[in-house]
């Protein structure tokens, strides 16, 4: 059962990382325009014409 001594903190730490990541994404406004985010990746005019041909 000694394995618990590092398994349990590890599990908690992983969960906590997820929670903090979510709170950070919430704070940085990533949920304010869900539809827009889906569409903004479509335009590809930031790629130069030479790269497009390749």
């Amino acid at each position, binding site marked *: *059962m000694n394995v618990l001594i590092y398994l*349990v903190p590890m599990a*908690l730490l992983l969960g906590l990382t997820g929670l903090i990541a979510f709170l950070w994404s*919430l704070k940085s406004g990533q*949920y304010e*325009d869900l539809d827009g985010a889906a*569409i*903004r990746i479509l*335009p590809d*005019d930031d790629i130069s014409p030479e790269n497009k041909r390749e």
Partner: protein
Amino acid sequence: MAETLDLSMFVERGEAGAAHMTLALEGVACAGCIRKIESGLIKLPGVIDARLNFTQRRLAVDWRDDEINAARIIAAIEEIGYRAHPFAPERVDADDDAEAKRLLKCVAVAGFAAMNVMLLSVSIWAGNVSDMTQETRDLFHWLSALIALPAAAYAGQPFFHSALRAIRTRSLNMDVPISVGVTLALGLSVFETAAHATHAYFDSAIMLLFFLLCGRYLDLAMRRKTRLFAGNLASLKAEFAHRLEGSGELVRVPVAALHPGERLLVRPGERVPADGTVIGGSSAIDDSLVTGETLHRTVGAGATIYAGSINISGALTVRVTAAGVGTLVEEIEELLQKATAAKSRTVRLADRAARLYAPVVHAMAALTALGWLAAGASVHDAIVIAIAVLIITCPCAIALAIPAVQVVAAGSLFRSGVILNSGDAIERLAVVDTVVFDKTGTLTLPEPQIEDTADIDPDVLERAARLALSSRHPLAAALARAARERSPYPGAIEEPGQGVRAMIDGSEARLGSAGFCGVAEEAQGAAAPRGDASIITFVHAGKVARIAIRQALREDAAAVVSALRERGLRIMVLSGDRPEAVAPVAQALGVGDWRAGLTPTEKVAIIEELKSRSRGVLMVGDGLNDAPALAAAHVSLSPITATHLAQAHADAVFLGDRLDPVLRALLGARRARSLMLQNLALAAAYNALAVPIAVAGLITPLIAALAMSGSSLLVTLNALRARVRL
């Protein structure tokens, strides 16, 4: 006349000439739009940033005031191909946004805690039937406490605050039993863990919070979505007024920026932007949105006019008066105050359930403890079992039963064009047995329509309609909608209050009053048969056409009224218009029960009288004069074209030119209410099954977890059935 546009009330000023404004956009539909608008604006000198929120269809622009101004930015967006309307963010919106963020944080914390505690709990349940040592179990219980206690203290706040508020006002809501249950479950678990017991309820408490927070967040998200949409619509509709400055200069300002004492110019064809007194000019005024009266009123200097009326013939100079001045407005304000006070007395279904539920479960827990004591159990055992009863009855399913249906039904109504202003409107709509309609603008379309044109040569009609494009007169606008060719005749001249003339194919054509067209005698006879129609005369190349224009019924009004009647509802028409105008409408709809020429006070009196005789009165109306009646009725609907005051007091607003959203709203609400009652029954059945087990002292945390999530899932799934196409 040159005019400038003053948008300063929408602009937020920052430091050093920085300015910010939010705009509601029309026509944004595709991926390309975002880039086109944003890059088009950022190119402009002085614009610092432009960011389009595609979900909200709102654009946030920052710029430096010394290089560019708000009016130029709007013009630039128009050049790109979209219409932008300045948007004044409301306090409610900001509050809602903050509340949604706070709830989402609570959901995240509760979700994190529920997952981790459940991880430990499953291990304990498995260990209890195999070889787990007591030390390991205690360690896992303490770890659960370490996660659950701070998480509940944080994520439970929405419930604890609401429960405290309810208790302070000496009432009960669902949050009271929730808070009591969660607190006791956590307290008992800590106590039991300290005593090395087998069972602790950390997982139940935190899971309960997680489920309820999810429900609450969805509820708020739905309300935010409808409010957002309504906010955009409001700014699309927002009107501008022409303000006369002291120097004689004319400035276009948003109506919300007007102050009492300012002078306005109201041109023919424009809507009167604010209540005021006429100080110059004379004209005919269409008061139909204010009083329901379709006959035009002649006004001159000294007359009082109200916001929402349409100026028909001559330009007027108006001095703005403070809100609430003038007999009609005062009367309406007073009636509104009384009606709103009366309305807050209706009790919501969820609160009724809570009032019944909380005392019953708390008494049952107390009785259980006493029963076990009497049967010879120890004080510790009796209290543990009593608290187990509270945990198992903790109203997860009951608290979700009604909001879940509300969220789904509100979404379903939203898609069929009904925007709810208040969450409990669905419950009140469902019990309606009397429907009262206003006539003007509600049963009829808000704008006049041309009457049957079968006996007019289509060619002549087309020419008349094209000529009407050059006129600002409201009646001409109705005729202009019939034009297939959308370009006006070149060189058309409008003579205000008279008509329009232009040269067509080498000869003069005239459109307007009979006198203007020189055919006065004949026209009088033709106007007679239909009492409330207005006649426009068109003369060209010796041909004379008389086109009747009148308030037309909404296309599906008769079908909707008869469908409502088939479902056993009593229909009534209450109008402020003349009896001659109301009678044909009532007859066309087959409504025998109608009154005409009513004042707002009389409308309210009739509604009150109906309320005393029926279970629920639905008022559908749009005018300023309907606002008190809308507030007085059990529940009320307004078309989107209604006056601001009417919309503010309606429980829901419907979109479009058709009346059938009224029927859909009623049917959807009835279905939603029956689902709510079903859900309450399901929750009660769950309690009837689970409570005896708890009272018998046979509950383990595993059973509690299964029972609780099972019942919550069941009511949520049942609520999804409200999502049918209406």
